[in-house]
C-alpha cells in the first residue's frame, strides 16, 4: 500500500487555511490527525491533489471553560479528551467515550474534528456529543456559522460541510442533565469499532425523567437520535420495565445492516440492550 503523490500545505493561521481551501476548492482535503485520510489514500478511496494540514493551528487544540459552555477545539486528540481534567469533572462520559476508541497510538493522533467530519455512523464521539447537546462552529473564507451537531449529519458519510470550511470548535452548553454515558459494544476490548453503541443523557428528578436524549452509533446509515424512545420515557416513573421499553423503541427505530461485524438482527438486539443499560447507568451514576 502506498500514499499517492500530493502537494502539502501547512498554514499558520485559520484565516490562511481558509484562504488556501477557498483557492483550491475540491482539489484539496483537510488533514488533521490523518488517521482516516491517510488510510483512505492508501487503500485508493481518496486521491486529493492537495493536503492542507491543520497541525500548526495550536489554538484549535484547546479545551476550555467559558461562561455558559465548555469549548473543545476541533484538533483536540482523543487522548487529550480522555485526559482532560475539565471534561472529566464536567462530563466524564465524554472522556470515557474517547477511551473506548482505537488504540493508544491512534488516540494520540486522531482528533475530535476528524471524527465528526469523517461522518461515519460508527464514529464514537458524535453520539455522546449530541446527547450533551453540542454544537459546532464552521469557519471559511466567507465567514462563520454554527449549528447543532445533530443537524450536521444527514446520510451515510454525508455532512452539511461546505467546500472550503474548517470545523474549528465544538461547544457543550451548560445544562440541567444529571447524567450521561456512552456504551459501545465492540468485539474485543481495544481497537474495535462499534458493532452498535448508545449514548444517552438524562435529567432526573425524584423518580421521574424530565428530559432524555438517546443517540445511537452503528445503528443506521448515520448517527441516529431516537425521538420515539425519548418521548416514551418523559415524565414516567423510572423502573426496569420502562427502560426495557425504551430499549425496544430504540431497537425498532434503528436501521442497521448486515456487516462484517454482525448481522442486522444481532445489531438491532444490541441497540435495545445498550440503550436500556446506558439509561440505567446514566440514571444511577450521573455523568459516567
Amino acid at each position: 500500500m502506498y500514499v499517492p503523490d500530493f502537494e502539502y500545505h501547512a498554514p499558520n493561521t485559520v484565516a490562511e487555511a481558509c484562504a488556501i481551501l477557498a483557492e483550491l476548492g475540491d482539489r484539496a482535503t483537510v488533514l488533521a490527525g490523518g488517521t482516516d485520510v491517510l488510510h483512505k489514500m492508501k487503500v485508493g478511496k481518496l486521491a486529493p491533489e492537495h493536503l492542507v494540514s491543520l497541525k500548526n493551528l495550536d489554538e484549535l487544540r484547546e479545551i476550555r471553560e467559558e461562561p455558559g459552555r465548555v469549548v473543545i477545539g476541533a484538533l483536540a486528540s482523543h487522548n487529550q479528551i480522555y485526559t482532560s481534567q475539565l471534561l472529566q469533572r464536567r462530563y466524564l462520559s465524554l472522556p470515557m467515550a474517547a477511551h473506548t476508541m482505537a488504540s493508544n497510538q491512534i488516540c494520540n493522533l486522531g482528533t475530535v474534528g476528524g471524527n465528526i467530519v469523517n461522518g461515519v455512523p460508527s464514529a464514537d464521539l458524535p453520539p455522546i456529543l449530541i446527547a450533551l447537546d453540542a454544537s459546532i462552529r464552521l469557519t471559511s473564507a466567507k465567514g462563520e456559522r454554527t449549528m447543532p451537531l445533530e443537524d450536521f449529519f444527514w446520510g451515510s458519510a454525508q455532512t452539511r460541510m461546505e467546500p472550503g470550511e474548517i470545523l474549528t470548535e465544538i461547544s457543550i452548553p451548560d445544562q440541567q442533565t444529571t447524567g450521561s454515558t456512552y456504551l459501545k459494544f465492540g468485539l474485543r476490548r481495544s481497537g474495535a469499532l462499534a458493532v452498535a453503541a448508545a449514548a444517552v443523557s438524562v435529567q432526573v428528578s425524584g423518580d421521574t425523567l424530565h428530559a432524555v436524549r438517546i443517540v445511537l452509533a452503528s445503528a443506521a446509515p448515520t448517527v441516529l437520535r431516537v425521538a420515539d424512545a425519548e418521548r416514551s420515557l418523559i415524565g414516567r416513573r423510572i423502573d426496569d420495565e420502562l427502560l426495557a421499553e425504551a430499549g425496544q423503541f430504540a431497537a425498532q427505530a434503528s436501521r442497521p445492516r448486515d456487516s462484517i461485524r454482525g448481522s442486522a438482527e444481532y445489531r438491532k438486539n444490541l441497540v435495545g440492550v445498550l440503550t436500556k443499560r446506558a439509561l440505567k447507568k446514566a440514571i444511577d451514576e450521573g455523568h459516567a
Partner: protein
Amino acid sequence: MSDNHSVIGRSVPRIDGPEKVTGAAKYTGDLKFPNMLYGKILTSPHAHARILSIDTSEAERLPGVKAVITHKDVPTLKYGLSPARWDESIFCSDKVRFVGDKVAAVACLDEDTCYKALKLIKVEYEVLPAALDFLHAMDEGQPQVHEEYARNINTEIHQEFGDVEKALAEAHHVRTDTFVGQRTYQSPIEPHSAISMWDAEKLTIYSSTQSPHYFQHYIAREFDMPMGDVRIIKPYLGGGFGGKLEPTGLEFAGAVLAKLTGRPVRTFYDRAEMFAHNRGRHAQYMEITTGVDKNGKILAAKANFLMDGGAYTSLGIASAYYAGALLPLTYEFDNYQFDMFRVYTNLPACGAQRGHGAPQPKYAFESHLDNVAADLGIDPMDIRIINARRPNTVTPNDFRVNSCKIKECLERVRVMSDWDEKKKNLPLGRGIGVATGSFVTGAGYPIYRTDLPHAAAFIKVCEDGTAATLYTGSVDIGQGSDTVLCQMAAEAMGYRYEQMKIVAADTEITPLDFGAYASRQTYMSGAAVKQAGEEVKRQILEMASVMLGLPADDLECDDGQIFSKSRNVKSLSFEEVARKHFVLRGPLLGRGSYTPPKLGGSFKGAAVGTSPAYSFGAQVGEVAIDEETGEITVVGIWDVHDCGKVINPRLLHGQVHGALYMGMGEAVWEEVLFDDKGRIKNAELANYRLLTAVDMPPITSEVVDSYEPSGPWGVKEVGEGATNPTLGMFSNAIFDAMGVRVNSLPLSYEKVWRALKEKREREEIAKREDAQRGLAPQVPVPLETVPLESEEPVYANPS
C-alpha cells in the same frame, strides 16, 4: 541423570533481549544493501480466470522501473512444500487460481514506484466460475481448480485400525456430532520479506524464514543449482507460526529480479498480501463418532473430515494426515477409523499453523466427549481421566508414547482451577470447561525424503576460553531457541551461559538443521547441541588431566571450573584449560548431530505424526456469558503441561501464554472471511480480530514433573501443543455456562447469542404446549442432562 544442573532449568535472560527491546535488532525488512532495488508481485484480482495476455510495456517505460518479469522469464518447474504434490508455479501462465495468485513482478528504485508500476501491467483475463465452497468442491460439475486433480481432490485418506464397526456394535452408547472449523491466519507481527542477491553464480537470500534449510533445498531445486551455491540467512525474525515455512514468490521472483538487474532486490508482503499468501489454518468439516461403555470408556472412534485446502497444496497433505493421526494421543482406545478429503478451492492455500492439524479436530473431539459425558451423566473431568493415556503405550496408529503424564495434568488442573467446587456452584451464565491436547516433539521424518540428520551443531571455544560460540542451523523465530540452545550448550560443556555466543540459521556458516516447525528444536537441535557440548567437555577434561596430572575420569567441569571429584586439589578455570588446549592441540571444537530412530508403522501415511516423544497437557477455562449480547468474558485459564524437563521456565510459560493467546483467538475471535468473489473481506487487523493485551485473562500455567527418556536431559515440546486444548476448552466452558453448544468455530458472541435465543424460543414453545395440555410447569433439569442443542453448522459469520 542428576538433577543438579547449573545452567538448564533456570530462567536466564534471553540472549537477544537487549537487542530486541532497544530496537537494535535488525529484521529482514530493516536491512539495506548498496544499490538495493525494491520488488513487488502483481497478483490476480480474480478467484479463477484464464490469462489471455499480459502487457508489461507501459510498466517498463515508467521511470524508476528496472525490471518487469512474468512466467516467460522464470523457470516453469512446479514447486511446493509437500513433495507428493508440487503444484505451484513462480508465476501463473495459463490460469490464476485464487485472488492473490502470482502473475508478474517488478523491481524498482523505490517502493512507491513498485506500486505504480504494478498498476501499469495490463493483464487480460477470461473470468471462470470458481469453486469457493469446500463443502461442495467435490460435487459433480464444480469448476476444476487443477485439471489434473479430478473432483478437486487434493488428498484422500482412509485408515482403519482395529475393528471399529464391531466395537461400535458392542458399545453401550454411540454418538455422532459434527463440527465446522474456520479459516484462520497466523498473522505474525513481522511481514514476510526477502532480499536476494547474486555473486556470479552464487545466490544469497536474507529471508524471514522458519527453515533456511528447506528454502535452500527448494530454491536450489527450482533454479537447478547445487545446494552449496544457495545461501539462506535468517536475520531476527518476528514470528512465523507455520506461515513462513516455505519459500514464496518473494524468494523465487526476487532471485530472478536480482539476477536480471545485477542488484540486490528486496521483496516483501504488506499485511493484505500476507493474508492472500496465507498458508494458515484450513477450514474443516468434522464428523466424530465414538462408542463408549457405560463408564464412559471409549471403545472406538471414527473421524470423518473434509478440509478446504485452497488453491495449492503447501504443507496441506501433512495437515490432512495430522488432523486424524494426532487424535488418538490423549485418550486410549484400540479401534479407530479416519477418513479425510482435502479439496482444492479457488481460495488462498492453507498450510501448517501452530498445532499443525490438531487444534480443530481436538475442538471437535473434546466438544463431542463433553456431549457424551452429558449423555451419560459423567463429570467431564472424570471421563477424561477414565480415558487418559498411560505412559509406555502405543496408539492404534502405531505411535510409541514413552513419557505421558496426561492423567497427572488433569488431576492437577482439577485442583488448581477448583473444578469440583465450580462445577457445583457456578451460576447460570458462568461456566467451566476442560480439554486436553498432545503434540509431536519434532516430526519423525523430514518434509522431503532424505537421510540427512535432522539437526547438527558445532561449538567453537574462543582461543583464550573467555567465550564459546554455538553454530546451529536452528531458527529462533521469537520462541527463544537461541537462548535455550545456549543454555544446553553451556550445560553440556560445564560452562557459563553468560559467556555463550550464538551464530544461527545461516546455511553457509551453520550446520544443517531443519528449522522451526513441528516443535522440534529444543529436543532435536538440543540433542545435537548437547553432543557438541559434551565433545568440548571431553577435550577440556583431557587437557586438564594433563595439566593436573590426574586421570580424566576423576575430573568434572561445571560452571566454568574444572575440579577433581575425589581429591582436594586446586581447581582450574575453563578459560585457562581452553587456552592451553588451543596452544597445544589447536582449535577447541565440538560437533554433534541428531537423527531420530525409525518410527511408526507401515500403512500408507504411517510416517505423519510419528515423533520420538509426545507432549501432553490439560486446560481448564472459566467464562462468563452476557445472555443478552452473547459476549464472552474469560474469567481465568489454568494450564498444566507435561513437557518433559524444562530448560527455561520463563520461556516455557511464555510459550504457553502465546499458544493460549492464539488458541483463544481461534476459539472466539478470529476468522478469515471471503466475499462471493473469493476476495478476503478482512485482510487487515481491524476486522481480523487478533486479541490485544487487555483481552488476555489471568492465566495460571504449571508443569508436572516429567522426564522423557529419549530426549536430551529429558525434554519434550510445549510451543505448539499448548494451542491444542484451547478451542475445545472454550466450547465446553460455553456449553457449561449456557447449556447450548455452538457447533462451528469461531464461537463468536453473535453465534452464542443466537444459540441462546433459539433455546429460549424453543423453551417458550414447549411451555406453551405444556400449558395447552394442562400440564404443570416442569422443574428445570440440571444443565448436564439438558438435551443437546445442535445448531446447523455455519461456516462464515452472517455478514
